[in-house]
């Protein structure tokens, strides 16, 4: 049976992991390779690297990091953050990324999704969608959730799937950072309307939130950052707990 995936998200800047990461056993907590290996060891099913650097050297630094991660890590990983062209994607995949995630660039130029799917295959194209509710309506937001658009979340989710996205990573800006649980109502609606895998993101605070997002949110995978980095929840323990609640999980 296909299992639900648990995905830690690592923010990287200039090839280094950022956010205070609380892994006492690491020699260098800023080294993406070491951190990725620790997560793979601890049962992570996949990893997401989100590049937040803005430097001129960004592209090369990120490609180098991807190469070093791919060299050492034997589970799949996705790379996102500022990816805007076929050429950006080509470099990352050639260096060993399994998937790339695009966000604002897809909203600005939806045809990019078609181009990427045609050239590289849908299986490696993740479309990340940030959204929050405005007057009760879910609206897509850009630039890490800062800039609202008029685009309806559910319409956009359907459109990206039709254009060839292989997966959707949906982050609710209303839930992100609250630790009060995922946006399960919206997730469930997307998952029912769109026939590609869906990753839930934003709001994880405790184990029951993961159960809820897999059961009521109908998510195929769940992503979180700080609760894993600060060891508020250990991935191994989380997966055992999910397994004991009859959620299909790889142990």
């Amino acid at each position, binding site marked *: 049976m296909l*299992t639900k995936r648990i995905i830690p998200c690592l923010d990287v800047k200039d090839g280094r992991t950022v956010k205070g990461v609380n892994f006492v056993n690491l020699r260098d907590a800023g080294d993406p390779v070491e951190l990725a290996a620790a997560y793979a060891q601890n049962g992570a099913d996949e990893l997401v690297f989100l590049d937040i650097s803005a430097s001129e050297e960004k592209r090369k630094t990120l490609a180098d990091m991807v190469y070093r991660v791919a060299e050492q890590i034997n589970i799949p990983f996705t790379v996102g953050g500022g990816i805007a062209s076929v050429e950006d994607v080509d470099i990352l995949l050639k260096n060993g990324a399994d998937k790339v995630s695009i966000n604002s660039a897809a909203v600005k130029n939806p045809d990019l999704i078609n181009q990427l799917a045609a050239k590289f295959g849908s299986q490696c194209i993740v479309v990340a969608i940030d959204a929050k509710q405005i007057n009760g309506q879910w609206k897509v937001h850009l630039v890490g959730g800062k800039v609202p658009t008029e685009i309806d979340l559910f319409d956009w989710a359907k459109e990206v799937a039709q254009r060839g996205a292989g997966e959707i990573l949906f982050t609710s800006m209303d839930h992100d950072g609250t630790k009060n649980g995922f946006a399960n109502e919206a997730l469930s609606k997307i998952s029912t309307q769109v026939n590609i895998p869906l990753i839930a993101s934003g709001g994880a605070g405790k184990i029951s939130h993961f159960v809820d997002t897999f059961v009521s949110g109908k998510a*195929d995978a769940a992503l979180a950052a700080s609760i894993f980095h600060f060891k508020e929840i250990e991935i191994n323990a989380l997966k055992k707990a999910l397994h004991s609640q009859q959620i299909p999980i790889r142990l």
Partner: protein
Amino acid sequence: MKTVIIDYGAGNIQSIQFAFARLDVTAVLSSDVHEIAVADRVIFPGVGEASSAMSKLKDSGLDTLIPTLKQPVLGICLGMQLMCNQTEEGNIQGLGVFDVNVKRFTSAVKVPQMGWNALNQMQGSFFKGVPNNAYVYLVHSYYAPLCNQTVAQTQYEIPYSAALQKDNFMGVQFHPEKSGTVGAQLLTNFLNQS
């Protein structure tokens, strides 16, 4: 022993090369028919779309070479699918190594299947040391149904072929290079096949 990964411009071959490097094996990338023909082990990778991958194979003459190889050959993901008779993806003829036609999952399930799924009904030395229900990583929209050459199964919508074998040819739908320690064990077993 020389291990060659067929490089025909279709797929994440870097990850496969790294997976062998982690086993202390240098796998060489090659599109050269002669170099591939004399290698001791051949890896036939592939991701992306079937008809464009098949045209690339034809352009380099690899479509006629691959079915004639005598050494152990491992097709991975789309590589395995192209070794079948035919595929619904682009409705193209395959290399005909495996006597089965590749089909698309229906919309009763999410397509592509993406993630970790369990292997069972495993047969043969390729699976030595791999326990029943071991998890492997898969990403695919098309699958090979069960057939006489099925040597491992996975369940998604229906039970289907996770691995196919005919003589020296092995094909796997999953990605051993991304399947953690189980994947590493399978690649080691492949290198140890006689």
